[in-house]
């Protein structure tokens, strides 16, 4: 008797348990059938795996002034500033890849480092408080700045990632790109949400 009462106290509604056991079972089954083909197609990826792939793609669709490379064999440098959300995803994506005959190098930075040697600079959300200083330090440098931080493009950054219905989209501030003397391929512009005058 006491045991029964205890059980009722611990699991309110013992009688109804079966119903949602069944509910869970159905949820598992249906999720499994949905997930199975999806796993094979690998269309379900971490947000930052996809963002890493975008950074690599940006290298293909942006032209830097010749002066930003010391010579024709120098790599394109992708910098990651602040806490690294990519894990080793960024390194794996660019491993062995070349773009316009150049290899790609990943450099990790901390706030305060000289960032002007980068071609693409990803600014982590951990650096939110420093964005104005970072952008100011890059004035006159040919750096494609990229970040997730809210209002980044509006605040003078070049590319800002935005999530729309769980898909990664991006905003380009054309004024910032022009100031950095970067030529952005019109195909990339066509896919972006563009702000700033042309």
């Amino acid at each position, binding site marked *: 008797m006491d045991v029964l009462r205890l059980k009722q106290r611990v699991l309110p509604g013992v009688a109804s348990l079966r119903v949602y*056991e069944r*509910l869970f079972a159905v949820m598992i089954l249906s999720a499994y059938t949905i997930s199975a083909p999806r796993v094979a197609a690998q*269309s379900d*990826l971490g947000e930052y795996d996809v963002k*890493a*792939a975008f950074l690599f793609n940006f290298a293909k*669709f942006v032209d830097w002034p010749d002066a930003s490379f010391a010579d024709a064999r120098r790599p394109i440098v992708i910098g990651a500033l602040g806490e690294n959300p990519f894990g080793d995803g960024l390194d794996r994506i660019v491993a062995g890849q070349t773009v316009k005959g150049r290899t790609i190098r990943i450099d990790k930075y901390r706030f305060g480092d000289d960032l002007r040697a980068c071609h693409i600079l990803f600014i*982590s959300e951990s650096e939110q408080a420093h964005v104005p200083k970072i952008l100011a330090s890059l004035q006159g440098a040919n750096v494609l700045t990229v970040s997730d931080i809210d209002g980044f493009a509006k605040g003078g950054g070049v590319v800002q990632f935005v999530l729309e219905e769980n898909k990664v989209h991006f905003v380009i501030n054309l004024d910032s790109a022009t100031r950095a003397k970067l030529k952005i391929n019109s*195909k990339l512009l066509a896919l972006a949400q563009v702000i700033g005058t042309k």
Partner: protein
Amino acid sequence: MRRVILLLTLVTWSWLSAGAQQSGSASQDLSAMSIEALMNVQVTSVSRKSEPLSRAAAAITVITQEDIRRSGATSIPDLLRMVPGLDVAQMDSSTWAISARGFNTQYATYMLVLVDGRTVYDPTFNGVRWDAQDTILEDIDHIEVICGPGTALWGQNAVNGVISITTKKASQTQGGLVTVAAGNLQTPETAVRYGGEAGSKGHYRIFGKYFDRQEQDLASGAPASDGWASRRIGFRGDWDLTKRDSLTILGGGYEDVEHHLENVIISLVPPVQEVITVPTHSNGADFLVKWQRTFSDRSDMALQAYHNHTDTRDITYGERRNTSDIDFQHHVAIKSRHDLVWGLGLRYTVDDTSGSFQTSFSPRVDHNATFSLFAQHEIVLLPNRVRLVWGARFTQDNYVGAEIQPDARLLWTPSLNHSFWLAISNPTSEPSFFSKSVRFSQMVFTGPGGVPGVAVVLGSPDFRGKNALALQAGYRGKLGQRLSVSAAGFYSRYDGLLSTSPGAPFLETDPAPPHLVVPIFLQSATPGETHGLETTGTWQVSSRWRLAASYGLFLIGLRGNLPATSTGTSPQNQFQIHSYLNLPRNWEWDAFVYETGKLATDNIPAYTRVDTRVGWRFAESASLSLVGQNLLQPRHFEFGTSSGNINTTQVRRSGYAKLTWTF
């Protein structure tokens, strides 16, 4: 046991499937994908909404429009069920009791509720008439709920929590929307909205909504005759006047006819008291103007004014209340380490009541003017790591004079994905018009010598609000890209909880016949303390499937004599799990399980509520959803009768179909 095994299976399977996705050569495939293809990849992320939250030093929950759409809820109170730590209990068709961290009643007095910046708790009871708070649910942008004190920044009455409802800007509701829902509780429930451009710089929308909610059940299972019909219209306009200035104008009106079961004194000879169906008519209107100006990246201000009118009457009592309010707020960032928000406001409210032997107020008319000044200062103690937020609100009003309510919070963010916070607050509740001025005849009886007697609850002009001290600690974190968790623990001490004390009986001759009055005075004298915790977890199992779960524990202890009615109205344990599943071809299937512990007051048993929704977007502009609510039992009580002035009814099992069309 079987449940545990099933849950373990679920965890194991998902673990395996998640592992399978990551162990593949995903990265190399990604580098070969075109940029267009990348833009179409569904990513998993523990929702963006948690990111601003990671900077908040409070137990805060945000309900998004997606959550609202998928909940299947047909009213704002039912939406709030999903908030961890909030008690939501339906009392009859049109009445809810909603509170955070204890003391739940029909007019739970320690909650601040705002709709688009307009304070909607009613100063008569300092509680919310939830039946009067409605809009087209599709037009709500988000609802923020804070469990715990928020008086310093948000406003008065936020002793135990804040609920802030924000509707979408008019620019986000352009074009038409028509929804029709029909089911066993809904005779076709209809909402219509249309939005367009208002000049070259702005947008507007107008809307209307009508429903006639069917009756719930009596304890016997018979219909409770507590039906509720409601009509509502409203509008909103938003203009970007210049690059720096924006203007919002919004307003609306409603008219409700509700029925409640009430314990009414029919006559004094012989003493007769009966539970009868009392029709209640209420209407209201509100109008708000808000001007915002951005001075620079570092400085902005807002000026807001509103007027609110409500009118409620039934056979026992009526009131007409008008409230005007003006608020100014300024925010400025000083260097990179300081952030200051300060503001001031003035509110004037008048309530004109008409009473009966059952319920009356003395004085009949209530006036109260409140001046309020607040400031909150945020200091970065260690860049990106440690922040201190401290502030206070000063108020001066006709009821209690001057008061100051301080608050201090510390936030430690050791990394982007983890944050820990501590808070200490000293909020004060305001006395209500009810607690100072009511005369409520609770019970009639035959006294000594056959003289009729009446037990009367009387407000005390010297009733003061309670002072509370609340300590809180919390953690919020993202564990990988798929899992987010939070936990908050609290301890609150109150020095003046509502209690009653009997007075000396006296003879009254008016109304005839002469009768004995046994007075019961309301007072705020009892000390008490509460503690508990709220934990939540959200797991994005895959891009198509999200699970959210929460558990809340609440314990109360009292020192002194407090009637049981006010201590056992919140459950000790609450557990919820929600599943959101996106199926192919624009189908969605969502399921919700709510376990609510028993209530000591009136011995309301624990119950499990299961709701489910199947949605199908069958065309670009049209969707259909089928919703089942309270599926496990034909009917159940969620709240007792003894702590409110209505007799609660049982919530029925229900289902409805809803068609949504946009153009």
